[in-house]
C-alpha cells in the first residue's frame, strides 16, 4: 500500500496531507514558513533602496512601450479615440505608443492599490480602523496614509474641480513624483507621464473601496527655465456617476 503512494516531502507535522497530494503544484518553502507566518506590521524605518526601485521602474516603463505594432489592433482592444487615426501614420504611431504605455502602467498599478487598501487599513490603530464612507474620507486616506506609505510624505494638494459641470472630478497634486525622478521622456512623447503607474494605484484604492473611478496623471509643468516644480503632476480622479449619486443620497439621510 505504502509503496504505491507518491513520495511525500518530509513534512508529516503539517495537516491536510490529502489536499497536498491532490495538488501536486503546491510546495512549501524548505523552512516550512509560508506567507501566513510572516508579520504584517513593519517598523517605520524599513524602506527600500530608491536606486533599485528606479532600475525596476525603468524596466517597467520600457516594457510598457514594447510590442506596439499598429493602431488597428489597439482600436479593437481598447476604447481608442477615433480621432487619432485621421492623423499621419507617424503621429498615430506615437499616439498609440503613448496610449498603450499609459494604459499598461495603469494596469500594473491597479492590483497594488487593491492590496494596499486593506493592508493600510489593517495597520491603522483600532479606533480609526474604518472603511471610507464618502469621497472626502477616501481622498484624505489616499493623500495622507497611502502617500506616506509609498513616498514617506503626504501629497502636496487635494482639490475639487471648480467647474460646476464636472462635480465628480477631484485632483491630487504631487510637486515631484518619486517615480518620475529618474525617467526622462523623449520630446515627441512629452505627453507621457509615467506616474500613470501611481494613478493606477490610486484607481485601485478607489475601486476597492467601492468608489469606482478613472484616474489619470497629467504633467502641468510648463517646461520653462527656472520653474520651481518642473515635474509637477496632477492626478485627475473622475468618479463614476453612481458614486456621486450615492454620495448625494447618503448625505441627505
Amino acid at each position: 500500500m505504502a509503496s504505491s503512494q507518491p513520495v511525500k516531502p518530509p513534512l508529516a507535522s503539517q495537516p491536510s496531507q490529502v489536499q497536498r497530494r491532490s495538488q501536486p503544484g503546491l510546495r512549501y518553502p524548505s523552512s516550512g514558513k509560508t506567507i501566513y507566518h510572516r508579520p504584517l506590521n513593519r517598523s517605520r524605518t524599513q524602506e527600500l533602496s530608491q536606486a533599485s526601485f528606479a532600475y525596476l521602474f525603468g524596466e517597467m516603463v520600457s516594457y510598457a512601450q514594447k510590442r506596439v505594432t499598429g493602431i488597428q489592433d489597439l482600436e479593437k482592444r481598447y476604447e481608442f479615440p477615433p480621432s487619432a487615426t485621421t492623423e499621419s501614420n507617424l503621429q498615430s504611431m506615437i499616439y498609440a505608443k503613448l496610449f498603450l504605455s499609459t494604459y499598461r502602467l495603469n494596469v500594473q498599478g491597479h492590483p497594488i492599490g487593491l492590496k494596499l487598501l486593506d493592508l493600510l487599513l489593517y495597520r491603522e490603530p483600532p479606533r480609526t480602523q474604518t472603511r471610507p464612507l464618502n469621497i472626502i474620507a477616501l481622498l484624505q486616506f489616499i493623500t495622507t496614509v497611502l502617500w506616506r506609505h509609498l513616498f514617506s510624505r503626504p501629497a502636496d494638494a487635494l482639490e475639487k474641480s471648480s467647474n460646476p459641470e464636472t462635480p465628480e472630478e477631484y485632483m491630487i497634486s504631487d510637486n515631484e513624483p518619486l517615480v518620475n525622478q529618474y525617467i526622462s521622456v523623449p520630446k515627441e512623447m512629452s505627453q507621457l507621464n509615467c506616474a500613470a503607474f501611481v494613478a493606477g494605484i490610486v484607481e485601485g484604492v478607489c475601486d476597492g473601496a467601492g468608489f469606482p473611478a478613472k484616474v489619470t496623471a497629467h504633467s502641468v509643468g510648463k517646461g520653462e527655465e527656472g520653474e520651481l516644480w518642473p515635474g509637477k503632476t496632477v492626478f485627475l480622479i473622475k468618479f463614476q456617476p453612481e458614486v456621486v449619486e450615492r454620495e448625494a443620497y447618503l448625505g441627505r439621510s
Partner: protein
Amino acid sequence: MSYYFAIIGTQDNPLFEYEFGSSKQGGDGVARFPEQARHMNQFIVHSSLDIVEEVQWASGQMYLKCIDRFYNNYVSCFMTGGNVKFFLLHAPSQPASSTATRASTSIAANPTAPQTEEAIKQFFNEIYENWVKTIMNPFYQVNMEVKSPVFRSRVAAAGKKYL
C-alpha cells in the same frame, strides 16, 4: 452551537467556506446542523447580502455585528476595506428562548449577547489578519478562490480559540 463561515467576494461570489462547531463548554468542535437544513446555510447567508449593502454605508466599522436572523440562525458580518465580506452563521443547539430562563451566560446559548458579539469580533479580526496576508500574495488577484490549506487551518484555529 454550530457555525458556518463563508467569505464572499466583491461580485457576491463565494471565495471560502468552512463549517465547525463550538469548542467552548466542552464542545467537540463538530458542526451539528440538522441534515435536512444544512444545505440552507449557503442560501441564508446569500440572502443576507442585501442587508449588508444597506448597513455598510451607515457605519465605517468593519465589524457589522449580527445583521440578520432566519428562525434559529443568526448571521454576523465583517466587511473588509476591499468590499470582501466575512459571514458567520451561528445556530444555537436549542432555540434561544428555552435557555433564556436559565440565564446562562455561555456564548453558545446567547447568540446576541455582548459576550458573543465580542467573541465573534475577535474571531473576525484574526481572520482579517490572515485575509490581508492572503491578498498580499502577489499571485492573488481580486475575487480568486482561497484554496490554501494553511489559511483553512488558521480559520479552524481561530474558531477553536474564540467560539
